């Protein structure tokens, strides 16, 4: 088995809430609350969940774009949050990010060759000529016409701009890339082109991806393993195919059943969750999902379940996982 490239241990990220004249801290938004995960070298780890569940914050904490309140993140054996600024800067060559918004993430005053060449300028001692040659090479790798490198980002379409963002991210030949909703803003026909590109680059460069997205079908396609987050907690982690086929956590089951499938003949049995996601500033006691869970029992509101392995390659944080002895039974749901 490949070694672990990324190890996240008990990471917490709290954002303080200030109030009143003296600006006292009156509480915390617990965006990420005690999350651990490992990503193996060369694999794609998909992270899914609804807005506000903390998946993007976790991605940013892993890259130390934001500091962690508690916990540690090791990438390639080094604790990212313990590095000095100089060491961190050096480390950034190995870890990069692709953002969601292809319009907001590129400097509109930079030519495309400057956008893609900037990491090379900062991190390498390449001459202007060498940088230009590398930019041409990178643009060809991501399927852009290198003769257009002297243009501005606004002259490119959304899909092309996302390719520019990808070229920038791979410029330094990183080991690890966080793709934060990298294809969510794109139309399906463009989306499939960009997904193919990411998978091609992964194969060619041996990249490791943390693929954050809310589009569950895209995550299924691209990921080797998937983690499901709810309200700052990791509720389920597992091998992609087995997780999609037999979800263990009731939230995962509800999430999967809620996606409209492009096939009118398959009228699925849907678990419609009641209500909305509670506030992460004041999460429910016990299991955070118990207020919306169709299988909730008394224990769920009192004791917080820990993420543990219940089947080979499958971890879940639930007292009564679906399809496990003594767990929840889908067939008993009134629909």
């Amino acid at each position: 088995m490949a070694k672990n490239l990324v190890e996240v241990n008990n990471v917490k990220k709290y954002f303080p809430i200030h109030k009143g004249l003296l600006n006292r801290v009156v509480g915390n938004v617990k965006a990420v609350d005690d999350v651990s995960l490992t990503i193996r070298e060369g694999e794609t780890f998909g992270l899914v969940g609804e807005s506000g569940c903390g998946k993007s914050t976790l991605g940013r904490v892993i890259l130390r774009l934001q500091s962690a309140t508690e916990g540690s993140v090791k990438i390639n054996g080094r604790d990212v949050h313990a590095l000095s600024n100089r060491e961190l800067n050096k480390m950034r060559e190995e870890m990069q990010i692709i953002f969601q918004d292809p319009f907001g993430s590129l400097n509109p005053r930079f030519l495309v060759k400057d956008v893609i060449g900037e990491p090379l300028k900062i991190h390498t001692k390449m001459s202007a000529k060498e940088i230009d040659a590398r930019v041409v090479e990178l643009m060809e790798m991501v399927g852009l016409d290198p003769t257009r490198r002297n243009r501005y980002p606004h002259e490119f379409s959304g899909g092309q701009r996302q390719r520019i963002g990808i070229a920038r991210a791979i410029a330094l030949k990183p080991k690890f890339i966080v793709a934060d909703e990298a294809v969510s803003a794109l139309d399906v026909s463009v989306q499939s082109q960009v997904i193919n590109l990411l998978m091609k680059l992964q194969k060619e460069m041996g990249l490791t991806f943390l693929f954050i997205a809310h589009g569950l079908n895209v995550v299924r396609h691209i990921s080797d393993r998937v983690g499901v987050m709810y309200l700052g907690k990791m509720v389920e982690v597992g091998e992609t195919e087995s997780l999609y086929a037999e979800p263990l956590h009731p939230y995962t089951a509800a999430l999967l059943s809620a996606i409209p499938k492009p096939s009118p003949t398959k009228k699925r049995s849907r678990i419609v969750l009641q209500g909305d996601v509670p506030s992460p500033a004041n999460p429910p006691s016990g299991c955070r999902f118990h207020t919306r869970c169709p299988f909730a029992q008394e224990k769920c509101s009192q004791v917080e379940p820990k993420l543990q392995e219940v089947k080979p390659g499958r971890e879940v944080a639930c007292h009564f996982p679906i399809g496990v002895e003594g767990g929840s039974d889908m067939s008993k749901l009134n629909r």
Partner: protein
Amino acid sequence: MAEKLLEVRNLTTGFLTEKGLVKATDRISLAIEKGKTLCLVGESGSGKSVTSMSIMRLIDYANGVILEGSINFKGEDLVKKKQEELRSIRGNKISMIFQDPMSALNPVFTVGEQIAESLRLHQNKSKDEAWKEAIELLRMVGIPSPEIRAKQYPNQLSGGMCQRVVIAIALASKPELLIADEPTTALDVTVQAQILDLLQDLKEKLGTSILLITHDMGVAAEMADHIAVMYAGAIVEQGTVEEIFSNPSHPYTVGLLQSIPGFEGERGGELYTIKGTIPALGNLPQGCRFNPRCPHVMDKCRQVEPGDIQVGDEHYAKCWLFEENGKAAVAGKGDNIHG
């Protein structure tokens, strides 16, 4: 065939730009039957929203001009009406809900006041009556403790609840046609599921016809009775939901369905892609507008634009492949679409 509530014929809407007149929709024809749902699907820029804005004649306020065509709603041609006359139809017989519920609501009025306003305006209800009915409407769209919620402002409600409020306002006048422009795009999937269920439920209860605009083939499969697929300003394929999904015919529809990663079967392989990009509306290719990207392109496609050609029962595609004997080359291609 059931009675048609709305029939649009050859609707062409243009915008005057610096580069001259640009046709955002090109000879759109569609019909919605009473109590049925028509889904208009397509990618961004395909002209879905312009079509719905034209039907509401709101396009006049967005510098758009209806160049030709008719919009027949219950025997009246909306294209020929003056804006003053339209005001009594809009929000009364035809209502609209928009993509972003937060910005569709006025932040300085409580949600109850906003629903009541619509009732007072369109149905001349007294203040008390309107308020009582507003609460009933909130109950109908599934908002818990409506008496309390009615007194709250939009920022105190979640996105899903705001969309329920917008739906309540749209339904206040018991419209015969509801136009929903991407009503769930801004919402999370579990909330989207709730809203789609609500729309389906209300359609059955009230017999409202729905024109649903979406880019999501999954939403269309679930909600639609009929589907119209738009590409670069034109409807390229049209038919019943079963026909479109079991026998997609236009190469664009086929490509669109194949590009979606599936939930079952093989994963991790290369996804199908439609080569190239959507052409600019001011610079459409000659002949079929899809021809530069089409895997089945023929000489004729580059010269003459195809009209609607019947490919099945109530199923039409604008594609020369079907010119003579109906289902030809691409038929059957839809078989390997993922579930």
